């Protein structure tokens, strides 16, 4: 360990409260992956271009490679690990990615699904163009995006069905 003074950070990740001491320079992505063993968010570029590290922080999509862990103090955070339904089944988005073949190597997938999760909260009925714009901060090298768009449309449809809404209420 280096001599740099550590500062306390408290936050809620996937519904669980965590408290740690971190170096002020520790990036959120390293904090999640190495301190908390939350390895779903990935590192693809460290320059906030690829979005593989996307998490939801206080209701917004955030690229955790360009946020300090210290900035997340007091935050509510959701990562891909917190996306499944409470009973452990795949969420509509996760199921959509599987049904529509919206992933191949799987490396961008956690960030992509996490981004889509927030996107559908911002806009529950997005058009194809709005979906494409909405995920433009997340790069995929395998799929060409066409099936990712379909996956998000699948989830939007599922989530907008009346029975699903009732169940959620």
């Amino acid at each position, binding site marked *: 360990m280096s001599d740099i003074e550590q500062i306390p950070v408290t936050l809620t990740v996937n519904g669980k409260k965590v408290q740690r001491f971190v170096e002020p320079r*520790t990036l959120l992505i390293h904090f999640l992956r190495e301190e908390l063993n939350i*390895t779903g968010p990935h590192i693809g570029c460290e320059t906030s271009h690829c979005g593989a590290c996307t998490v939801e922080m206080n209701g917004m999509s955030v690229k955790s490679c360009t946020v300090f862990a210290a900035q997340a103090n007091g935050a509510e955070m959701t990562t891909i690990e917190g996306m499944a339904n409470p009973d452990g089944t795949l969420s509509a988005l996760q199921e959509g990615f599987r049904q529509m073949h919206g992933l191949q190597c799987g490396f961008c997938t956690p960030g992509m699904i996490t981004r889509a999760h927030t996107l559908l909260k911002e806009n529950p009925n997005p058009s194809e163009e709005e979906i494409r714009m909405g995920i*433009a901060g997340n790069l995929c090298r395998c799929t060409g*995006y066409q099936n990712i768009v379909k996956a998000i449309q699948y989830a939007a449809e599922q989530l907008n069905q009346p029975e699903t809404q009732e169940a959620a209420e």
Partner: protein
Amino acid sequence: MNDMTPTREQREAALEGMGCKRKRVEDVRFTQGKGQYVDDLKLPGMVFGDFVRSPYPHAKITRIDASEALKLPGVIAVLTAEDLKGVNLAWMPTLAGDVQMVLADGKVLYQNQEVAFVVAEDRYIADDAIQLVEVDYEELPVLTDPFKSMDSDAPVLRPDLEGKMEGAHGPRKHHNHIFNWEVGDKDETAKAFAEADVTINEMISYHRTHPSPLETCQCVASMDKVKGELTVWGTFQAPHVIRTVASLLSTIPEHKIHVIAPDIGGGFGNKVGAYPGYICSIVASIVTGVPVKWVEDRMENLSTTSFARDYHMTTEIAAKSDGTVTGLKVHVLADHGGFDACADPSKWPAGFFNIVTGSYDFPTAHLEVDGVYTNKAPGGVAYRCSFRVTEAAYCIERGMDILAQKLEMDPADLRIKNFIKPEQFPYQSALGWEYDSGDYHTAMQKAMDTIGYRELRVEQKAKQEAFKRGETREIMGIGVSFFTEIVGAGPSKNCDILGVAMFDSAEIRVHPTGSVISRMGTKSQGQGHETTWAQIIATEIGIPAADIMVEEGNTDTAPYGLGTYGSRSTPVAGAAIALAARKIRNKAQMIAAHMLEVSEYDLEWDVDGFQVKGNPEARKSMKEIAWAAYHAPPPNMEPGLEAVSYYDPPNMTYPFGAYFCVMDIDVDTGVATTRRFYALDDCGTRINPMIIEGQVHGGLTEAFAIAMGQEIRYDETGNVLGASFMDFFIPTAVETPHWETDHTVTPSPHHPIGAKGVGESPNVGGVPAFSNAVNDAFQFLGNTHIQMPHDAWRNWQAAKNLGAHS
């Protein structure tokens, strides 16, 4: 039979075998963030390695002083070439028969070259320590232009080769020359050109780019000094080859090296070779006795581990006035950077570039490739293509368009006129290949009908007239590409990597209750092998794919194989899987005969079991046979039900396809918009249509990127430009066009299930389709050829140069 007995169709559907759009088993873990990639691995006591890199592209190193870095708390070691010399690892052999510095030995040859390896307790300290390592450089003249590399006054890049006028592939004619590779009939080709009615001659460049999978190259090396065993987890497309190379270099016996490739976040050729990061991590673990992790950052990835392309192809075609081609002559100047680390089968210095005659019946051809050194990063990997096949496809597909222009013929008609005819297969090409099967005319006709090709040409003509009248500032291009690939390396008679023949393998074990574990020598990086390999087995032995587990990447458990790249998995390992499964079915037939008390010749296979001919009620399912195989085998038969197969393919496979791109370009902004892109692929037998379509989408997106803007450029002083995602074009969902896919099926006659491989076709065929669309759009303004990549700036320049702005 009662009503509960499933029908034959129901039993077939339950297998989810070949041809089924089976959902991927991998997705369950990947959609939940439960993939296990290298960087997810955390071992007790693990430390981190990182590189000190050269800011200069060509310089002598006069001093390296790590003393300040070593004083930093948390720094464990700093390795330099001098340290590596102690274990004879300062240099490593490349796949192409050259040697490459692991750490700079007295000089550097490209910007960001590895100079020293810092080992520290965490990533942040390693990064701090890098800043504290002092290196003194003495700059040398820089060579970045491959066309100047063999000038008499060109700087000497490789003093280690001084006086060596014989390289790994024959004589060298200059101190920066690597090899000359010549194929074909020079005299016959010269004669064809002398007698030709029409000839073309164009220098067609395929620029330097990079595969850049979203996960960079990385590894964890762990040396257990007590057991004398080394374990390396890494992003390896070819784990067994890495194990063999590691054993040869380290002298650790091969059985004491465990190489494990866990989930891989995309490869596209980037993860085939061995890189200094792997070697340094292994040495550092041996030195420190603790596990060492090395993870490349994006800039390191783009600027050091394996570029692709950088081929400069002078292309000449001879033809009769009716369009019949009579000869092809190509000279390639291949820029290999500072070391020849090109990832090709060892006997092929320019890969399979001699597929450059393409889909056309050239009676004669001549090809020469000269490889040269420059002050650029080493590499030359097959970025989602078989070895140098995308370069070849681009060369011939641009060439055919240029010839059509000169002949004032339609480029689709010119292609059809010269296609190899269905009855000519197996077809011997002028440059030495035997094409296995093809029906190009049917594929082309289907594609042209679907896209409405003739109508598009009419529309284009009208738009050109409107442009000339000043009514529009938009021009329209139609890109035609009809490619033939050569994949599935390969037959041991001509394909090996450092002497290891390029077979592949499969092992299948049926458990007593009728479920299966199977292991292969390949390694998926997103291709979905866990899903598709199970489908082949399901069809062959009648056990549902859901009951078949596929495992790859662990060299201790998987049979030896050469890995996944060059679209070789389905042509080679896919065949091994089918043959291993057939061995199991043959044994099952004998067991079933014993169980039913008939001769095995009285039995016939029916979906998921054997039945007595003429008496289908008397049958045994594979599940029943599996139990009997262990507990009640016939007398004198070994118990158990498993098989291993190693497959040495008799030939390559030759997938093909017809691609059309319709593009509109604004001449005032240079912005190009892809209106339609239609891709018809023929990859022989289709194992999982959903996965094929996904692969085509992905490959087309890569082709779009490469053709329209993705480039690793160097300035004249050797600075690498474009080594971050800010500058290196990776299309987002916004720019990426909509893809239309289609297919025909022409099975490979020599492959057990007739499959040819598809993963790379869209990259190979897509690049010429895009580039031809751009060039076609500008043709009526007088254009012959514009070099890629066709970004808005270059399109704007082209418009300006052709007088469209006046």
